[in-house]
């Protein structure tokens, strides 16, 4: 740890610009910190002189409810935006874990992908404008407050998923959509023999669920720790649509041999959020959580293979399969952090041999920095490095945190 390390929380774009420019000149390296919910992603910074917290950059900048657009400062929590939008029957499908802490800037910078994206689209596709501060203190805007805009490159989307290595997002403008009036959550046990069929049935429903998961482990989700897996399905829409979707879902699960389902109307979203929170729920130093993105039709197969592989390593594996999008969340753990440490790097190699894109999204195990936390870099990595060099030649921002050591 660096003795002169300090923490700053600038409260305006201008103040961010001044801070960054002075760090950049002085050769100080800066880590950008939002709500810390995704601190399990990425590599630790190579060196750290200043932590730039966005905690003082909060608040809604503009809420044009009749236009269905909203703008917020980078440090605003997702919960604050979602709650405000809910009062005007609108939403943006952020689906960020721990939304009460997660910030707009952090969620965008991490490129967070939520489970409802197959239905409503990615958060990046709601981002219509942004203000960013580059390492040299340049304040640059892109896009605006209109829902269609092709004036120049789509810089805002380029910042999504850039992990704070191109600049600090100080403002984000979103278009919103009408909030579905009703939600219903289904929970059901998913005995081993029913999994493949049930997931297949879910993916083929005519009225596609807003989200559907096969959860194995993660006992926090519904408070029981059975041996069986569980299916969690979120339906959203009008009353009439939910009626039809419910019938369809019941008979589909019945066909797959799923015994009984439990329906939650009040608190459906809270139940859904518990699953999303589990994506990054870690067991301190005893776990490492990966996220993989196979195509939907390969997801269950890949989850089953992962369980198999973990058994060989003698590690415990818990999975969440997002049936609609195909992602798999895999929490690898051992009761003893040392035992995990002894095996995790080999497991990481074995995993990436079959799933090169697997990323680490959570975990406090000390060996985490030695894993391929961003997966195997794609062939375009050199171009990405070049992009970083153009934006931040001195490597002032989050140095070494991103893919390929960017």
């Amino acid at each position, binding site marked *: 740890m660096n003795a002169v390390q300090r923490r700053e929380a600038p409260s305006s774009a201008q103040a961010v610009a001044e801070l960054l420019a002075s760090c950049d000149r002085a050769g100080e390296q800066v880590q950008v910190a939002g709500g810390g919910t995704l601190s399990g992603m990425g590599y630790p910074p190579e060196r750290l002189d200043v932590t730039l917290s966005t905690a003082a950059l909060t608040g809604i900048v503009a809420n044009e409810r009749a236009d269905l657009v909203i703008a917020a400062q980078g440090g605003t929590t997702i919960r604050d935006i979602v709650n405000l939008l809910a009062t005007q029957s609108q939403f943006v499908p952020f689906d960020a874990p721990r939304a009460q802490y997660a910030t707009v800037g952090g969620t965008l910078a991490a490129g967070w992908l939520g489970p409802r994206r197959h239905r409503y689209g990615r958060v990046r596709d709601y981002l219509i404008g942004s203000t960013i501060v580059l390492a040299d203190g340049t304040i640059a805007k892109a896009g605006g407050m209109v829902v269609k805009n092709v004036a120049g490159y789509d810089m805002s989307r380029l910042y999504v998923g850039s992990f704070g290595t191109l600049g600090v997002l100080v403002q984000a403008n979103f278009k919103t959509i009408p909030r579905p009036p009703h939600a219903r959550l289904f929970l059901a046990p998913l005995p081993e023999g029913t999994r493949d069929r049930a997931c297949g049935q879910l993916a083929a429903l005519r009225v596609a669920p807003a989200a559907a998961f096969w959860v194995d482990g993660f006992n926090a989700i519904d408070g029981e720790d059975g041996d069986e897996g569980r299916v969690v399905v979120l339906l959203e829409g009008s009353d009439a649509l939910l009626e039809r979707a419910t019938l369809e879902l019941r008979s589909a699960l019945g066909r797959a041999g799923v015994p009984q389902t439990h329906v939650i109307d009040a608190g459906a979203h809270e139940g859904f959020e518990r699953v999303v929170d589990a994506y990054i729920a870690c067991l301190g130093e005893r776990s490492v959580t990966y996220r993989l993105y196979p195509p939907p039709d390969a997801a269950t197969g890949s989850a089953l293979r992962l369980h198999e592989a973990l058994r060989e390593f003698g590690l415990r594996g818990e999975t969440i399969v997002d049936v609609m999008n195909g992602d798999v969340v895999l929490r690898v753990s051992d009761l003893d952090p040392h035992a995990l440490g002894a095996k995790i790097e080999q497991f990481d190699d074995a995993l990436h041999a079959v799933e090169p*894109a697997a*990323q680490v999204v959570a975990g406090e195990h000390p060996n985490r920095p030695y894993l391929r936390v961003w997966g195997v870099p794609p062939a375009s990595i050199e*171009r990405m490095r070049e992009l970083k060099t153009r934006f931040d030649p001195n490597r002032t921002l989050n140095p070494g945190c991103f893919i390929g050591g960017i």
Partner: protein
Amino acid sequence: MPRKNTALPNHSAAVIVKRPPKAMAMLRERLVEALGSDAVKTAPEDLAVYAFDAYTDGGLPSAVVLPSSTRDVSAIVKIARDCGEPIVARGAGTGLCGGAVPLEGGIVVSFARMNRVIELDERNRRVRVQPGLINLALSREVANLGLFYAPDPSSQQISTIGGNIATNAGGPHCLSYGTTINHVLGLEIVDAVGEVFETSIDAAGYDLTAAFVGSEGTLGIVTSAWVRLMALPESVRVWVAAFDDIESASEAVSAIIAAGILPTALEMMDAVITHAVEAAFHAGYPTDAAAVLLIENAGFHEDVEASESEIHALVSANGARSWRSARTKAERDVLWAGRKSAAGATGRIAPNYYTQDVCVPRSRLPRALHAVGDAARENGITVGNVFHAGDGNLHPLLMYDKRDRKQVAAVIETGNQILQSAIDLGGTISGEHGIGWEKREAMTRVYSTADLAVMARVRDVFDPIRMLNPEKIFPAGARCPEVIPS
């Protein structure tokens, strides 16, 4: 296909590039060697066909090539580099901002022969296509699987997926489905040195796909794309609401959006347009209304049905004087065909037209339309409005005769005033057609020097020597940020 959206004469920046005959012969020789003679055109009469898009004429390119593969494209780029020729990628040439127009000689790369579906992944609802594939051909090809490709520019019968990607094209149904960028999953790109690389929105690292979609051929050449397919909706309804004045129609649009209803499409046409459409196609629009809204809602039966009374109530409250529901698919199709061919139908009004494309916050639509009317009146220009109202994306069609220099000047002035009024209302200078050559100087009206310099950093990564579609998007002098007028 509708006639050309006419070039504004003397409006083109084309420089006649006289290259030494020996150099031209050498260029031809190398291209022929790499691609075969039937893929290379250098005769002036052949080149002329590639000198314009639907906005303007440029100069003649030095050569036109028709690659058949990614490898061909890569070879072309290397030859172009050696010979110091810029490259202009070209789809169908329906662009409305001079994007595909060569301005200083150069090699036009036409994707007419790279127009196939490469790989269809039905189960995961995605397809990999070549850039020259025509937009509508893709939807037709997958329709029997119950799927479609959502972005639907009105030019979809001839415009290409590559051109759509390069311009981030929109269309009537983008109100609910989003523009092209929401549907591109990954790209294969040939860069400015002829190297091939791929992008994917699911790969870790920077979202290069996002940088390339909408970059108008200035960052790289798209040689294939994975795009998303969607399931055809189980239920579709189309309604036409008629109004006695254009203000009420635009108030109705704002009211629908403000009520939190996002139909699948929400289009407006004024009387100038409906008259032209009816005269040409008999699509079924009322001709005694000052403006009509064409509204579509698609999705699940229950929701589509319920939305009818809600939307009907809102338009009635805002002064609609009639409301018609298309009863059959045939009726719906003909209404849409009329809408999508509207621009072409205006030939009866004036020999030429110019399409402006601006986007404003949706609640300001009434004011924006007012400003359009004022500008046209002030300059004595007939204007027809046909546009994506639900998105606040205006397309005033300015009618004129290009042989009349006064009218040309008046059209330019009107277009300019409309642009400025959109900016003043908090809008942007292009909602979907792009910047190209036409609006490059207007970029400084919405972006600061710093904003543009940041975009230029991206260009520096992929095309530092500015050989890919130079003279587009960035205002002249944008390479050195200091000289951009702000």
